[in-house]
């Protein structure tokens, strides 16, 4: 049987995580190819609905990556993102889906290696959890 390759959606802040991902690329760092990055103007723009929808539509894992605490380009967006992620984790718990499929990370634009590490860490975690029960049965790549 083919090994399970999770699909992970990463909502990345333009000012940090997205640039860090860029840097990881420039640095030719190897990291799990399971990550699909969505660029956001700020992690604080993340919406409960978007997180839920990503999971409902079959993402095996989702994470939000914002700036280091205290360093948000919009001052407090990353704190807001953290609370929302935490709330959606509660919702997942309530509906019976592993809350570990969702996570919040903080990093700066200079942390290319850290981005690679997060990507690997999240991929390993989701592999451990197995495929999402919402995964489309039709197969194929998303």
């Amino acid at each position, binding site marked *: 049987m083919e090994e399970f390759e999770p699909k992970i959606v990463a909502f990345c802040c333009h000012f940090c995580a997205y640039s860090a991902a860029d840097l990881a690329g420039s640095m030719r760092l190897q990291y799990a190819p399971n990550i699909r990055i969505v660029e956001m103007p700020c992690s604080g723009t993340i919406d*409960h*609905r978007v997180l*839920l929808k990503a*999971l*409902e539509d079959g993402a095996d894992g989702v994470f939000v990556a914002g700036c280091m605490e205290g360093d948000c380009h919009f001052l407090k967006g990353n704190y807001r993102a953290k609370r929302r992620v935490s709330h959606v984790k509660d919702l997942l718990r*309530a*509906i019976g*889906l592993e809350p570990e499929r969702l996570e919040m990370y903080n990093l700066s634009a200079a942390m290319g290696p850290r981005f690679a590490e997060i990507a690997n860490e999240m991929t390993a975690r989701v592999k451990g959890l197995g495929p999402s*029960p*919402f995964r489309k049965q039709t197969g194929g790549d998303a």
Partner: protein
Amino acid sequence: MIVAEQKPLAEIAGMIGDCRKVLFAGCAGCVTVCLSGGEKETEVMATALRMKRQLEGNPLETVTYTATRQCDPEYVDAMADVVKGVDAVVSLACGVGPQYLAARYPDLWVIPAQNTTFAGGSKEHGVWEEFCGLCGQCVLHLTGGICPVIRCSKSILNGPCGGSQYGKCEIGKDVECAWHLIYERLKRLDRLDLMRQYREPKDWSKARDGGPRKVTREDVMIG
């Protein structure tokens, strides 16, 4: 505004356990402002419950709609199409909404998604407090603009009682003594004379005690 708090998801899930298709009806009035039953919350709830049912192998079809207000017949009338074919409607309005829906659609099973909590306002983003006891006979002009009917745990009209200490109420250190606040404010305004006056027992017939209330305004009636 009317402040309401969502019931736990599991409780709502239990109430629609035997439904296959459900309308989640939000309200763009008070519950949107207190972030518990607006368009966004309605979608989150519908999605979460749809996911829950999917996980349980008992898929739920959801419809979402947010009425301008669920406490006005015209906006509830406008829902005639969306309520068609659903097994139940989960209303995210305050307690008024499910009742308007029930009255307008006699065959529709209605479910409240909220616990309607109080009439109040926001203190900061994400914190709401009770301010009005809806007693039907306002006394704020006598109390410096602080309501003793609802903000005093005993609704005392000649306060503060003996349980007031350090500005707090006897029921809890995190509850301000309304009468202490009234005292401070009247003192500042040099109107403590108001507090010295004896206040007669209130006419509670104007409140819920007198039975369901109704306000009629002939001058604004149409037709």
